[in-house]
């Protein structure tokens, strides 16, 4: 079957088996490997992507169900060299360790911040409760999302403020 999606702003069309999972379409056919598979039962959220702006678990969706719709994966978060506030937040607050859950976590956080620009800890914990992290214990992920909310508000107030081009690492 033919499937046509807009992913990270780019139109992609491909012939796929009807049974092809969306995550396999994204990872194996489109070679966007930032989306991960952790459990196959939609329990862990490592495969979370945004479908028309809403988080979905791409391991339990078929690629053909995404036909004609808009997808965003972790690769689409940054705008060119400018990192999304959520990416900055995770770096600044040590919100990631092994990094495997991070793409899904960040996409859920982005969706949360779009509907709630200033979420409480409770609201953040509820929003990310479908995504498992084995490394961080969530404390720093919550801080990361709060950090992102503040940064997003700052950027909205001063939209031309320059932002570090990339995470260089090693700085204080």
């Amino acid at each position, binding site marked *: 079957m033919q499937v046509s999606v807009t992913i990270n702003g780019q139109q992609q069309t491909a012939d796929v088996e009807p049974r092809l999972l969306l995550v396999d379409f994204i*990872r194996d056919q489109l070679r966007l490997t930032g989306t991960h598979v952790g459990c196959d039962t939609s*329990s862990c959220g490592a495969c979370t992507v945004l479908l028309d702006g809403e988080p979905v678990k791409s391991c339990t969706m078929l690629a053909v169900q995404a036909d004609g719709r808009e997808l965003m994966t972790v690769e689409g978060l940054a705008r060119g060299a400018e990192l999304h506030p959520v990416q900055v937040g995770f770096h600044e607050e040590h919100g990631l360790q*092994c990094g495997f859950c991070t793409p899904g976590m960040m996409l859920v956080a982005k969706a949360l911040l779009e509907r709630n620009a200033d979420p409480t800890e409770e609201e953040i914990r509820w929003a990310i409760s479908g995504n498992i*992290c*084995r490394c*961080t214990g969530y404390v720093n992920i919550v801080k990361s999302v709060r950090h992102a909310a503040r940064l997003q508000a700052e950027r909205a107030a001063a939209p031309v403020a320059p932002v570090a081009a990339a995470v*260089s*690492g*090693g700085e204080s």
Partner: protein
Amino acid sequence: MSVEAKPHGGIGESIKRKEDGRFLVGRGNYLDDVSLPGMLHMAILRSPHAHARIRSIDAAAASVVPGVVAVVTGELMAQHNLAWMPTLSGDTQAVLATDKVRFQGQEVAAVVAETKYAAEDAVGLIQVDYDVLPAVTSPQQASEPGAALIRDEKEGQKDNHIYHWEAGDRAATDTAFARAHRVVRLTTHYPRSHPAPLETCGIVADVNPATGKATLYMTSQAPHAIRTVFALVAGLPEHQIRVIAPDIGGGFGNKVPVYPGYVVATAASLLLGRPVKWVEDRNENLISTGFARDFHMTGELALDSEGRMLALRVHLDSDNGAFFADAQPSKFKAGLFHIVTGSYDTPAAHVTADGFYTNKAPGGVAYRCSFRVTEASYLIERLVTNAAIEMGMDQAEMRLKNFIPASAFPYRSATGWEYDSGDYASAMNLALEKVAYSELRREQAERRARGELMGIGLASFTEVVGAGHGKDFDILGLRMFDSAELRVHPTGKAVLKLGVKTQGQGHETTFAQIVAEELGIPAADVEVQHGDTDNTPYGLGTYASRSTPVAGAATAVVSRKLRDKARALAAHLLEASEEDLEWERGRFFVRGSPDRAKTIQDCAFAAYTNLPDGMEAGLEGVSYYDPPNMTFPFGTYAVVVDVDKGTGVVKVRKVVAVDDCGVRINPMIVEGQIHGGLTEGFGIAFTELITFDGDGNCIGSNFMDYLLPTSWETPRFECFETVTPSPHHPLGAKGVGESATVGSPAAYVNAVMDALAPYGITNIDMPVTSDKVWAALRSRGVTE
């Protein structure tokens, strides 16, 4: 120039992680992201039965599925002498079953195909005719007369017993028990759990038919040791094997062993001349790869009338599954369990352990702990709390009374350990202060008067981490040293290559900070490489909190070696004598003339451009570090819970963690490790369980049954520190990655036991679920 003008990234600085960049933009390179030209995909057929004889395997239908290239059976593996492989504990394990299956989920056959969908389709079409045998699912069953013999293929194996192991002094312990005022006894099962890293295990095996070189991309915490094991298993020349562990999505011990899938995929690549990828799914991960714990323990504590410990006696039965494949030092059959006297000055102790085969998955790994330290710490901390409750003493006071005093280090324990350093009372007192212990006890008394259940749990753990030294600690004879190789380029930028391998712990930052501290090159200018055996010095790998104690020490030592050479170069450049030079981080200057100075970058450039006569060019070196002793991190965790009488639901209200891991290299990363361990400890205490029904069917085989803590139920953590450096580590560091998984389960469970103490309830086996709490309360007549 001033090297302090910008952040240097030395020891004690919470610099942000160097490795974050690629993960934040989806450019990590995990095993399943590896894709090679012509790569085939492998899927494994697993046994649905816990114990059954294989009558026949019919792969005809599977072979003709479009896209299928090969079906691999045990018979084919046997033709290449690969149907069985050695385990890390000196036993053998079936790669693909030829005679019997011995646990549910055991590898029976594999399909190699052009796509993973085709491979999975074909696996479903392989017909296996089984003759089902009775399943043995516990050590108790395993040791019953007439129990089914699981390892009937092993010559001389007449029953299901694997090993008997002892530590300590039986006679001295018996004598102490004979004069005890009171003996407190606890029998508990530390249940089977699973490390369940979010990324499952896998391999891309690429045996090049033209050169014979085997490049094995593998989710491995110990790539060098695995390379040697592969050379021994497969008979491949070791220089023709390159193991590459790419980015690893969490390990927690699960990625230490060699699994059958790795061997089959490698054999398939060798036979087919094409790369073969195998990535297990979550179900396969939970039912077949390295589980953890499964110790049935009875501990007895002998006390005098003042509550002082006189002796500790422990017996445990270990459920090792169908093959003895524990990943642990060869000499210690029950791991390092004999650290069981913990933080307490116990004059006598005796430990006996027996291991048993059962029809369950093999491969006892240390789920985020140093070889069974978790089980030991849990038992002693539970015993101490129960002893205090039985004697009507305060639980903190009981601990303070029995701690090894700070003045007694180095301390020789009754089971033979030499503890390097400790100050247990300071850590405990800080925890009591931070949790507001006295107020909590007052609040508890008030609540009890109102009929409400509230509990305060303490655990004052001591770990033993950082194996070796190599004389006593080895795996399959490989001594447990570790290594670091440091190369400084002419422009003063450096590459550090490690024998250990991160799974998320932040090695690329922490180890750069050690170089920054010791050699003065800013951490940002040090690239840390690891995980590729062709590109790094030999090491035993990352597990058992050994990276900082061992490879961290190696990094400090090699940095100092290079600093010595840089000193000679600086003397040459400054036309001064080496003795007249002073070092401050990043530069040498002439004593009394701080302006006459050369930076480490100047020295590096000179090493390639302007050498004194007779000096070898270059600024690089390697260190293989064999630690003189283990390190002994410690701390006190305090947990406050409220228990609902009507439902048995336990709500964790507060968690205070005081950790002492010696000198902290990157405090931010250290605290992150503690958060993670407290969460996994919470999971072990309350939710995570791999169990089996009477037929040996695994329950807990997916994330809908094996419950990992989510953000919703995971408590908030408050972390604090004391610092007692290790006297023998070059940096005073001790290792911290596992402290919280080791220490916290007892703190959580002790809090529940404290809440239930008025009803005389002394034990609930983990996971402490609401139904068990509810049943315990009901058994004591408590209703609403």
